[in-house]
């Protein structure tokens, strides 16, 4: 049981990091970013490249991933989404665009980084055994960095001017415009931060898992599950959804035969959303 709690907590923290960027972009832009998983993969590959190919330190790789993904997010917002959102009459256009960017990014990653799976050595090696629970030091390190990143992000959103502007846009885009918030500038910033957070997740997790060019879609699906569970566009909801999924997986794999673990999770999600379509922390009015 203790190991299940440890596994669930670590898994939940990892998932929270993945879900945050997705929910932020959804909140600011109203765009379900289908390229989210591919951005995660790109973040992992950049850190791999910096650490294993260039021989630089992990934190250099981490910063490189965050910066490059932030720029990719900025590029996507400026070159694709802003243009389509201005001109398209139907909301489905942005969805199709998001799917297209996912395909584009996946193909580019496959061509640049090839087909092999990549990972880097754990930043901290060793395994702690505490009261019969196994806690690998690498996972503890990732948990710690992810926790700091989460807290920093929440503080940024709560106590800085750009953070307040982003929250205002998330709550009501039109009213924010009337209040003098520069929508274009902050939408671009929101997309860049969301993508940068995804890059951070990919960078951190490549040290304990691995990345390959084709895993983006499954990452996106899990991120969608977390965001829908927690309430689309709500940051605290994404974190809650991540921990619910993390603990569900940990407990499911421990106590239920593996073949039905995910089946039960999806059935539970369907039932839950049927009863509460706005998720754990989403508001019924959107």
């Amino acid at each position, binding site marked *: 049981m203790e190991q299940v709690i440890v596994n669930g907590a*670590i898994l939940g923290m990892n998932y929270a990091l993945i879900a945050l960027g997705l929910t932020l972009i959804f909140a600011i832009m109203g765009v379900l970013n289908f390229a989210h998983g591919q951005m995660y993969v790109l973040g992992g590959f950049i850190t791999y490249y910096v650490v294993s190919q260039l021989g630089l330190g992990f934190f250099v790789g981490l910063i490189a991933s965050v910066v490059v993904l932030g720029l990719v997010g900025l590029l996507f917002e400026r070159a694709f989404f802003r243009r389509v959102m201005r001109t398209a009459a139907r909301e489905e256009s942005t969805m199709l665009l998001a799917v297209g960017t996912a395909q584009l990014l996946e193909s580019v990653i496959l*061509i640049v980084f090839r*087909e092999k*799976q990549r990972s880097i050595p754990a930043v901290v090696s060793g*395994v702690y055994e505490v009261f019969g629970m196994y806690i690998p030091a690498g996972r503890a390190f990732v948990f710690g960095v992810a926790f700091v990143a989460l807290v920093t992000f929440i503080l940024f959103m709560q106590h800085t001017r750009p953070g307040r502007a982003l929250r205002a846009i998330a709550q009501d885009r039109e009213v924010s415009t009337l209040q003098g918030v520069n929508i274009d500038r902050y939408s671009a910033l929101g997309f860049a931060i969301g993508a940068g957070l995804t890059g951070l997740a990919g960078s951190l997790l490549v040290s304990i*898992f*691995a990345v390959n060019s084709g895993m983006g879609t499954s990452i996106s699906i899990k991120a969608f599950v977390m965001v829908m569970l927690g309430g689309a566009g709500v940051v605290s909801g994404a974190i809650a959804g991540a921990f619910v999924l993390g603990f569900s997986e940990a407990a499911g*794999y421990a106590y239920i035969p*593996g073949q039905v673990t995910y089946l039960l999770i999806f059935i539970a999600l369907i039932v839950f959303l049927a009863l509460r379509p706005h998720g754990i922390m989403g508001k019924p009015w959107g």
Partner: protein
Amino acid sequence: MTTGRRIVGALVAAVAVGLGLSAEPAVAQGKVLKIGQIGVMSGPAAAWGLINKYAAQAQTKMVNEDGGFDIGGTKYKVEILSVDDKMDPRVAIAGTERLIYEDGVKYIIGPNVDEDSRAIIPVLAKGGAFNISYGWLRELFSPPSTNTSLGMIAGYQSAPVIYKYLKDTKGIKTLSCLPRNDASGLDSRDNCVAAAKELGLKILSSDSTYEPGTTDFFPVVGRVIKDQPDLLVLSGVAPADAPLLIRAARELGYKGLMSTETAMDAKILTEGAGKGANGYISVGGASTPDIRTPYMERFIKEYEKVAGEWNDEAGTKVYALEMILQTLRAAGPEGITNVDAFLKAMPKVEVDNPFVKDKSIKLKWIGDSYFHQTRQVRVPMVVTEFQDGSFKTLFIGTVE
């Protein structure tokens, strides 16, 4: 090519990837023998098809540089036409039809998985074409199916051999099978259970599975190893998942043996599991240094040029094109356009294996005892153990 330059070209090339079809530049002069290659070359399992593609391209380059392949006194240059089936049976059917009817291909390497291989059987029969598949299902290679052959050692063939070896040499008494929750994984799990029962090994766990796309294996591995089996079998594991499973098992304190029936890549294992993968047993092809010939060394160099770096899995995929060419030589020029002539020639083929030093391991078509017809390439079963970044040959077995 540097990664920076690849990035510049990638955006343009991505459009070409979307088209799904790529081909080696046509050989300028002389007669050309077109060989198709179909497999999954995008998405989560892209590595499987790409390894087939790169292996075929590398070997084609060698054959063409040597002046072509002699069939009935005429030298033929080889051209590889590749199609990405996206691991979708409908795309596999469309891709096979395109190869057969638009490109005039009669011989195809791939697909990689059971579902796609099963889907194209009627297309092959109708179009008079033949393929070497990397799916494992027995029905693919058994009558009434005649135009499909198995290109590798299947898990149900290697599993009993590996477990027996470990029982005899390491004294294992218990095992647990851990498959991925998809058709191929579950089929491998069933083979694991059957082989273990046959050998009198006690099965401690076989009902746990993990989902495709899993990144954190801690929870599922924790459940499987709680009884500390002597052997943990990663049934039909994808090369991408293996290092993460191994790392999770070792971090959770598992000290026993681990094995699989599939081929692995040493670099992926090293990066993903480090020393934790030491002792991991898998089935290789012709790539371990102590058994490979100079021709295989040359193939590895060509593969590196094509793919950017070597992949040990390619050691199991090097045989398909060689067997097609050797059988066409036995069938004569008629076989190039007539698959029936090719099928008739199959039992006659018995040539030296150009990839391994041991001359007793002839290349030929086998499979009677499994499929009631000779529909399997006789790939040597090179059982390897991972040690400090590379594979060591444990023993070489054969399937007849």
